[in-house]
Structure formats: C-alpha cells, structure tokens
C-alpha cells in the first residue's frame, strides 16, 4: 500500500505563477554536491530556480505553479543520492536571520563612517603639530560630525535599544556603559568643535562601535548557523502522519496538517507522531522513547498511544486526541518550562565581568574629573579628561573577548560532530564534574542490532537478510541491516503475525517467530542466556537458525566512560527501563551508580538533589522523558537520533554512533574557558595600562585609537588559538 504524499502545506505561492519550496538536504558537504544537485534539479522541465545553500544545507526551489508536484523533487534528489525533506523555517529562525542582516548593515555603516572620519582625523593630528590654521581644523571637525552623528545614530541602535530596555527595567547590562560612552564622546566632540578645540573624538566613538558590532555579529552568526543545521535535522527525521482522507483513502501529510478527531493509520514499524486512542487493530507497541521501557506493550482498541511510540507488529487505526499538544507532551513541557526558568538564573562570564566593570569605569571617570578639579584645572578640561577615560575604557576588547572564542570553538566543535545550541553552553560544559546518562538510545544505539552474528554462517545471514527486506517488523529490519542485504527476494508472502516465507531453489525459506520456523528449542537456549534479547528465527529447508536482536551499547561507550572516570568525573545512569536491563548495561560499563524505572519527575528530582550537593551535572539523554531532566541539568547533550523536544532542549547535539564527542567536548570546553578567561585578563591588562595614561590626561585620540584596536586584535588572535585545541582533540 503506497500512500500518496502531500507536501502542499510547505509550498509558498509567490504570485506571477511561481511556487517556492525549501528542502533540507542530508549529506550536502562540498562544492561537488552543490553543482550536482543544482544541475540535476534544473534539468527538470518548468523548474525556474534550484539553488543550494551550503551553509544551511538547504535547497531553494522555484517552479511554474501547477506544472510539478514537490514530491518529484524529493524523488529526483533520492535518485541523485540525497535524502531530502520539505522544510518550513520556524519563526525564531526568520527573526534571527533578519537580526543578523540588520547587524551586518549597522556594521557596514559604522565601518564606513569610522574609516572616513579617520581619513579626516589624520590631517588634523598632523596639522596640530605643524601649520594647520584653526579654520581648516574646524572644517575637518564639522565634516567628521556630519558623518559621525547620523552614522552613530543608525549603527548604534542595537546597543541603544538594549541599554534603554535595561534601564527601563531598572537593571544595567554591558550596553549601558557602551551607550553612555558613545553618546558622551559624541556630545563632547560636538562641544569641542563648537569651541574650536584641538581634539575631537568622533573617530574613537565610531571605531568603538564598529569593533563592538563585529563582536556582536560573530556571536549572532554562530548561534544562527547551528540553529539552521539543527532545524534541518528535525525536518529530516520526517515528522509526518498517514491520515485517512476518505473512508479507505490515505495520504501522508505533515504533522501540522493533522488535527484532533482525525483518524490516522499506524503501520507496523512506524513511529506514532500524534497522541490518540486505538479504534481498530491489534499490535505490540514500543514506548521506549517515552518511558525508557524497552519491552513492547500490547495495544488494542481503547489503548492510548503517545507520539514517539513505535508500532511493532500490526496496523492500527488511531483517532487523534492531540497532534502537537498532547496530554503527556503537555505534562512534559510543563516540567520543561519550570526547569528552563530555573536555569535562566545562570550568569554568563561576560555578564559577570561587565557587572563589575560598569561601576568601576564610571567611578574612575568621576574621580578623575573631581581629582583634576581639586588639582586646580578648569571644569572644561577636567570633563575632557574624564571623557577620554570613559572612551579608552569602553569595553571594546571585553565585548569581543567571549564571542570571538565562542565563534571559533563552535566552528571547531561543528567539525568534530558536535552542534552548539547556545553560546554559554561552553562555559557550563567546562564546569562539569558529574555526567548522568540515560540508557536507551544514549548509552545504547537507537536502533536494534543482531548480537549473535558470529554464530551464523555468512551465506545464511545474507539469505535471511534478503528475506527480511520484505518485512516491516523492526526485528526483521535489524537483521536486514546487519546482513547488508540489498536485493529483496522475489515472490515473498506474509503470514500475518507469524513471519514471511518464500521459495528459493525449490526449498522453502521462512523468517519469523520461532514456532513458525520450528526453532523453539534454539530460541529458548538463546533467551536463557540473554533474557533481554528479542529473537527471530530463520529456516531454509531443514537448516534452522535464530537471530538474537537487542539494542547494542555504542561501540566506544566503555572507553568513553573509562576516560570520564580517569579525568575525575563521576558517572551515573538514570533510566526509565527495567532493572535487569539497566543492571546489565551498568555492569558492562563499570558504572556503580544507576537507577532503573525512573519517571521524568524522578529524573528531575535526582538532578536537583545532585545540584544541592554542589555537583555540576551534564545530562545526556535522547527520549521525550529526558527532556525535563535535560533542561534541569547544569548543561545537557543529546544524540542526533533524539526526539525533537530533547534536541531543542539540549545545549549540545552530537552526531554519529560514538560517545567520544561527549568526552571530547568536555575537554575542549575546558580549554575554551581558559581562553575566555585569558581574553578577559588581556582586556583588563589593556585597561590597567591605558587607564593611568588617560587619568593623567596624556591620552591623545591617536593613543586611544591605537590602544583600542590593538587590544581588540590581541583578543581575536588569542581566540584563534582554539583551533589548535580542536586539532588535538579531533
């Protein structure tokens, strides 16, 4: 039964007979893929545009409306060897894109103004020591003002707005001293110009703005890039449902098009994407993603099904009770919200530094002014000196210190297979002294695997694999995957609830329940040794074999855990699975602290308990039931196979089957934190050198400009050293 696919929900109509769709594409990584995809798609008739975005791993497509079905693009991409999925950018992402381009525009304006004012300042500086007449100097100053004032008014917006919002809420943030410094510098410069003075500070104010905007843009672009890729991952997992559009007609639709009261079909081997109640059919369902329990549960009419459960054996008709806001999901997201709020109290390094910074700088400027007045200079001169203190201490290097490291580190982590969801995650990850793992899907691989493959002859394995390709059952799918079989056998028929059978060279072959293949004895032996495994039997003539299938530990789990212990980090398991399964895994990994059968609320309780004991907890989990715990922990990670909710909650997402990225990221974060601290010290050191000069009244605009750019460059160069750290770890 091949259902039609309906992606009309994702298509945007542009008017003038054109339609547009965005596709997230898996596996686009190089220029070769880019031109291959673009040429492949442009070759389709009526396609007016196919453009790959290599940064976001997406394809934008436009075609003449009505001429093509978006499904054909997906099929065409599949032919080219890429898995694609329609993609709808979420609102948050659109807002961030707009913000990034606004920041870039501000940066462009500030950089333009800074350069031109500098061009006008140099003649003034050199003219001051030679033969410039005051009228010429005034002309240059007025010209500078003409450029600086509108440019600062426009490009300073990100700082002014944020500072104003903070002040209105009776708080201060880093933007308050920045805004005060810039506004004072500009106001003072205008005053000086009116009074025909020798110096004006337009160049310093604009250069400061340009450097700060560069830092802010770096910070923003890092977060935007990871969010874009994470958004693709969510789309690629394909959250769709098979909906009944008529009594017997079905269609595959995106989740957004399913509403309460609809009836959906849940086929064997398919994961439910909605909450609902079974109205027809008998099956076993795997709720491990929700509860962590790996043993399948029986389902029949009246059984509640939750999004995330896997249907194992029979087709079910489900009446949808909730598509996106389900009872269980609502409960979990309520826990989640509370946990997220609790964590937002974490103060980032940069904020902690700026909290100290602002009062110190303002006090220094005020004392300088009073000091000079007491010494006997005029108020005017004292104010000029005080303002040069404010300008020279403006947190330019401080503003770049953290984002510069974050950007370099996020790029380096990205290349080693770890995506960063939030910039401050690096700081939190560096503190970790305890790691809490979920078991199912985290310590183990998300998919089932054959564990007794060494006992089975290669040719039998391959034949069983080809037979297994005909079945939807996840256990059979595991056999097919493990055997690497590609060509299904012809003429296979299915015996409902038993297995599949066919004929090859006149001999009957069967794959299915042990009783169906007459292999009960062998199956019982295997189940005695490993009660956690699921079995599937194979019979070819009189030859009988039984495959044991279970979730395997990630290949390097033992090494990764051992490394963690060696670095002095405590490890424990919190799993919703049953006791024997957890005990077995913990034993294999040498973890002494573990808890089985815990609910989402229990997980949070345990993490809160650890926090009260002063531990900094890294939670690693993938299930929906882990999401609240992920949010409650000091910092959290999810594998890429995790549910959407968990990935959105986790601070970091790691790719691939290995656990090494988890361990590596901790070490790398510690290195990055050291660099951030160094950068803050560099910025402080610069101030320690420059501030006395400014207080002494010796800071000419040239000294201020040189010191400021010098300190910013130093901070950026230091951040680039994080690349070396990445090479050692990768």
């Amino acid at each position, binding site marked *: 039964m091949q259902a039609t696919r309906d992606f009309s929900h994702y298509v945007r109509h542009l008017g003038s007979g054109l339609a547009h769709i965005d596709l997230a594409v898996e596996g686009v990584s190089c220029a070769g893929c880019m*031109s291959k995809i673009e040429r492949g798609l442009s070759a389709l008739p009526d396609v007016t*545009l196919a453009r790959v975005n290599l*940064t976001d791993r997406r394809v934008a497509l436009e075609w003449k409306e009505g001429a093509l079905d978006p499904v054909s693009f997906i099929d065409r991409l599949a032919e080219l060897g890429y898995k694609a999925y329609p993609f709808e950018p979420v609102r948050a992402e659109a807002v961030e894109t*707009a913000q990034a381009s606004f920041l*870039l525009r501000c940066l*462009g304006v500030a950089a333009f103004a800074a350069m*031109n004012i500098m*061009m006008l300042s140099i003649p003034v500086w050199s003219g001051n020591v030679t033969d410039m007449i005051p009228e010429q100097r005034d002309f240059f100053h007025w010209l500078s003002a003409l450029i600086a004032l509108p440019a600062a008014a426009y490009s300073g917006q990100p700082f002014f707005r944020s500072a104003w919002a903070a002040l209105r809420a009776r708080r201060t943030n880093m933007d308050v001293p920045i805004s005060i410094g810039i506004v004072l510098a500009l106001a003072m410069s205008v005053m000086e110009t009116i009074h025909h003075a020798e110096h004006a500070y337009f160049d310093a104010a604009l250069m400061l703005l340009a450097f700060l905007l560069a830092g802010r843009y770096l910070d923003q672009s890092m977060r935007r890039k990871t969010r874009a890729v994470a958004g693709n991952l969510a789309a690629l997992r394909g959250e769709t449902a098979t909906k009944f559009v008529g009594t017997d007609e079905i269609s595959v639709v995106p989740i957004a098009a399913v509403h309460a009261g609809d009836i959906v079909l849940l086929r064997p081997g398919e994961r439910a994407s909605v909450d609902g109640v079974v109205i027809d059919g008998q099956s076993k369902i795997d709720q491990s993603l929700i509860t962590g329990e790996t043993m399948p549960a029986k389902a029949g009419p009246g059984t509640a099904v939750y999004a995330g459960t896997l249907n194992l054996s029979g087709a079910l008709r489900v009446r949808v009770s909730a598509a996106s806001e389900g009872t269980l999901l609502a409960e979990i997201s309520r826990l989640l919200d509370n946990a997220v709020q609790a964590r937002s109290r974490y103060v980032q390094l940069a904020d902690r530094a700026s909290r100290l910074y602002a009062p110190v700088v303002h006090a220094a400027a005020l004392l300088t002014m009073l000091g000079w007045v007491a010494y006997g200079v005029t108020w005017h001169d004292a104010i000029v000196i005080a303002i040069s203190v404010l300008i020279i201490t403006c947190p330019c290097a401080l503003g770049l210190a953290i984002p510069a490291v974050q950007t370099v580190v996020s790029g380096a982590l990205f290349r080693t297979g770890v995506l960063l969801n939030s910039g401050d995650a690096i700081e939190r990850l560096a503190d970790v002294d305890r790691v809490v793992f979920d078991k199912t899907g985290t310590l183990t691989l998300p998919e089932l695997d054959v564990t007794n493959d060494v006992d089975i002859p290669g040719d039998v394995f391959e034949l069983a694999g080809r037979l297994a390709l005909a079945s939807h059952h996840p256990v059979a799918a595991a056999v097919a995957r493990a055997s690497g079989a590609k060509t299904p056998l012809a003429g296979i028929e299915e015996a409902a609830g038993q297995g599949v059978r066919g004929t090859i060279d006149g001999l009957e072959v069967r794959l299915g329940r042990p009783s169906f293949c007459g292999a009960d004895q062998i199956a019982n032996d295997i189940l005695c040794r490993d009660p956690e495994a699921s079995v599937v039997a194979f019979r070819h003539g009189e030859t009988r074999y039984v495959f044991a299938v279970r979730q395997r530990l990630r290949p390097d789990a033992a090494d990764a855990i051992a490394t963690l212990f060696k670095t002095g980090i405590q490890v424990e398991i919190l799993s919703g699975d049953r006791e024997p399964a957890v005990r077995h895994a913990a034993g294999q990994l040498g973890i002494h602290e573990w808890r089985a059968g815990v609910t989402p609320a229990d997980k949070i309780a345990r993490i809160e308990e650890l926090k009260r004991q002063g531990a900094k907890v890294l939670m690693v989990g993938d299930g929906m039931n882990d999401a609240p715990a992920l949010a409650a922990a000091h910092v959290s990670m999810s594998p890429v196979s995790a549910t959407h909710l968990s990935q959105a909650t986790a601070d970091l997402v790691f790719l691939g089957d290995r656990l090494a990225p988890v361990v590596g990221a901790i070490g790398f974060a510690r290195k990055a934190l050291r660099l951030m601290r160094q950068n803050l010290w560099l910025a402080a050191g610069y101030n320690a050198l420059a501030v006395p000069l400014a207080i002494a009244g010796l800071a000419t605009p040239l000294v201020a400009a040189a010191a400021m750019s010098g300190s910013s460059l130093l901070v950026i160069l230091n951040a680039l050293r994080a690349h070396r750290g990445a090479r050692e770890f990768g």
Partner: protein
Amino acid sequence: MEVLVFLVPLALTLGALGLMGFLWSLKNGQYDDLEGAGWRAIADDEPAVEQPVYFRQEADAGRPPR
C-alpha cells in the same frame, strides 16, 4: 589647500559608493551562504542561477527587527 574642495568630497563619494555597494549586496542576499559562494567562484560549469524571487521579495519587505 584649494584642492581640498575637490578631494574631500571625492573621497567621501567614493566611500559612500562602497557603502552603497555593500548594502546592495547585503539586500540581495549575497551574504546568506558565504561557504557556498566561495566554491561557486571556482566551479567550472555553473548552471545559470538567478537570485530566488522569494528572497528578493523578503529583502524588499525587510525591516530592522524590533
């Protein structure tokens, strides 16, 4: 010194042209995919690709975020 009457406006005009060029390219989405753009420059046989109509509309409607 009279030459300044020409030179200063000239310098500022050149600078402003550069800024306008930058803003134009930003609005045109040329900074959307820096990674891909680098590779496109050295691609041998690039299919004739125009800027998406959709992005153009988006850029025209673009306002600084609140």
